[in-house]
């Protein structure tokens, strides 16, 4: 049976009389005259209700009187949520979500090969540099997309191996990219298979959304090359800096093709778009009469 706020209040009153309890509340901050003992009795019996503000004031008074958050938790009359919470993320929901999303990506300006982005907005010198980088790091976002889709479509059950281990090359730990807001970037990491399990069809999974005004845009799923124990895999992630000038962190963990986690822990990349230019966005205010 669910405990109502009135029942919870009765329990908190304990052996005190209605009059003494009301006086106790007033002594600890409840404005006098807001809760009579008759009304208190009715509330306890479920015959009357109180507005949320009065419940909040009673809760404050009880906490000032020494009751804990947990003891007074049932006195909270929560307003109905203005929006139903988002569904919780599970391997199955992630797999379905990203399968559906990745299928629609061709032609997206964010995910197209970086050389095309460069050709649209930059000068020749920069394109040349970027092409060199693209060739060096084998950046092919479209190929990555196909590969992730192929893995997500696999009909296989995966089980985490307790002897699975990963280490990150010491130069690639906690990398910080210092770029301008919205600038494209490429980050690489060398992941060493330090356990006894062979990595097949694995991916790096980014926690959180793929982009926001204060978080960089980068793929949520990045395919990991199949890697034998003792060998090292090179991971290449391309993205764009967040538009706000701030420090952001991207956290990637390792998952199987069905989006379930392979092993504990995660690795992080930092993207720093802060600068000392004035950031204030205040506009001239309307003249007020």
């Amino acid at each position: 049976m669910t405990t109502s706020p009135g029942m919870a209040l009765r329990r908190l009153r304990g052996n005190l009389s209605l009059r003494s309890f009301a006086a106790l509340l007033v002594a600890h901050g409840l404005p006098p005259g807001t809760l009579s003992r008759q009304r208190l009795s009715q509330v306890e019996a479920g015959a009357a209700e109180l507005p949320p503000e009065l419940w909040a004031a009673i809760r404050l008074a009880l906490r000032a009187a020494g009751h804990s958050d947990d003891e007074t938790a049932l006195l909270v009359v929560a307003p109905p949520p203005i929006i139903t919470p988002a569904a919780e993320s599970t391997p199955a929901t992630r797999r379905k979500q990203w399968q559906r999303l990745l299928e629609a990506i061709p032609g997206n300006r964010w995910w197209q090969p970086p050389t095309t982005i460069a050709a649209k907005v930059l000068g020749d010198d920069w394109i040349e540099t970027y092409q060199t980088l693209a060739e060096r790091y084998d950046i092919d976002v479209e190929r990555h997309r196909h590969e992730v889709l192929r893995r997500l479509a696999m009909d296989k059950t995966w089980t985490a191996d307790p002897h699975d281990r990963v280490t990150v090359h010491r130069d690639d730990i906690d990398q910080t990219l210092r770029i301008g807001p919205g600038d494209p970037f490429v980050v690489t990491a060398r992941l060493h298979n330090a356990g006894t399990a062979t990595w097949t069809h694995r991916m790096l999974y980014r926690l959180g959304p793929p982009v926001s005004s204060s978080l960089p845009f980068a793929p949520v799923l990045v395919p990991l090359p199949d890697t034998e124990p003792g060998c090292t895999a090179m991971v290449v992630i391309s993205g764009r800096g967040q538009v706000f000038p701030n420090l952001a962190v991207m956290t990637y963990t390792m998952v199987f093709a069905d989006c379930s986690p392979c092993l504990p822990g995660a690795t992080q990349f930092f993207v720093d778009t802060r600068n000392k230019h004035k950031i204030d966005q205040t506009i001239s205010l309307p003249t007020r009469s």
Partner: protein
Amino acid sequence: MVVVNPGRGRPRPRAGRHFVVSRELTGAMRQLRLAGGENTEGTVEILNHAIAELYPEVTAASRSITRGTSTPRLVSPAYVQRLEQGFHSSMRVPEWLQSADLENKSAVRASKVPSWLVRAYDLAFGADGYLVDMYTWAEALSADHRSNPPRRTTHLPGAVPPGTELEYLSDGFGDPPPEIRTVLHECAEHLARRRPRMSVRRHSPADGDSSTTYGERDALHPEGTLVEPGGYVLAGWILHNTGKVPWRDRYVYRVGEPTTGITAPSLLALPDTDLGGVIEIRCPVRAPSRPGTYRLCLKMGWEDGTYCYPATLLGVILTFIVPPADIRDWHLPWPAS
């Protein structure tokens, strides 16, 4: 590691300057949709899949809208584009903005956004609850924007019963660790000391008043920091008084309800700050118990709730990620080799 830095001549993309919070919300929805695909028809198809998944009763036939209410329905590319750009069911420009001298009038254009659509965007484009959380504080800020000048009308310092400052500020914090408890005590003492100076005076924002943060404290808790469900964090920001108005009797208000999403005190008293001065805000925060991405937003105001910078939409922010329950030991960094 490689940093691609374009160097000279590169036009810097600018953050959108939205003054109506609903436009900020649709801007975030658009950003996430475009991250999913540039092709409008394709992304709307994904969105409609999400709508059908969340609201199984919806069919192609449910396109009709009952006047005055918005019920889940499948959407068209034209609807999505108009909504994101602020043209659909346009909201009235708030009175305080009507005579503002704006370079770009489209910055005050905004659409009404139904909550069911926000949930569908969140699911469709992998927002991890970020849009749903944003909707809650966007609605709260929208309500504040209906006043002229914009002001908060609930959780004001005058409503805190004397002697209960600590209980008020620590509502929802449960049993916090000593560091958080200490700061809550300090905040409560600061609030109590402010009481004799409280008045019924109405404040008004002034031209020339300006605050800036350079993200000096970002390294402690960068945007996107992971926090365990119900975990505690001491957030911090440095604010510079870069305007021509000394700061007196000011507070920062948490936008929205104190225990919706991230738990944080609904207000903190700020020390008086002269021109060119610097203050540090230390805000105890508790992460939600439900996995997802959440953003805390604090705005500066006076004791009557009036915001000092109504046109600076967000104030200082902090974005947390509470990892999904099946991702274990995410706090352990992979070791170096």
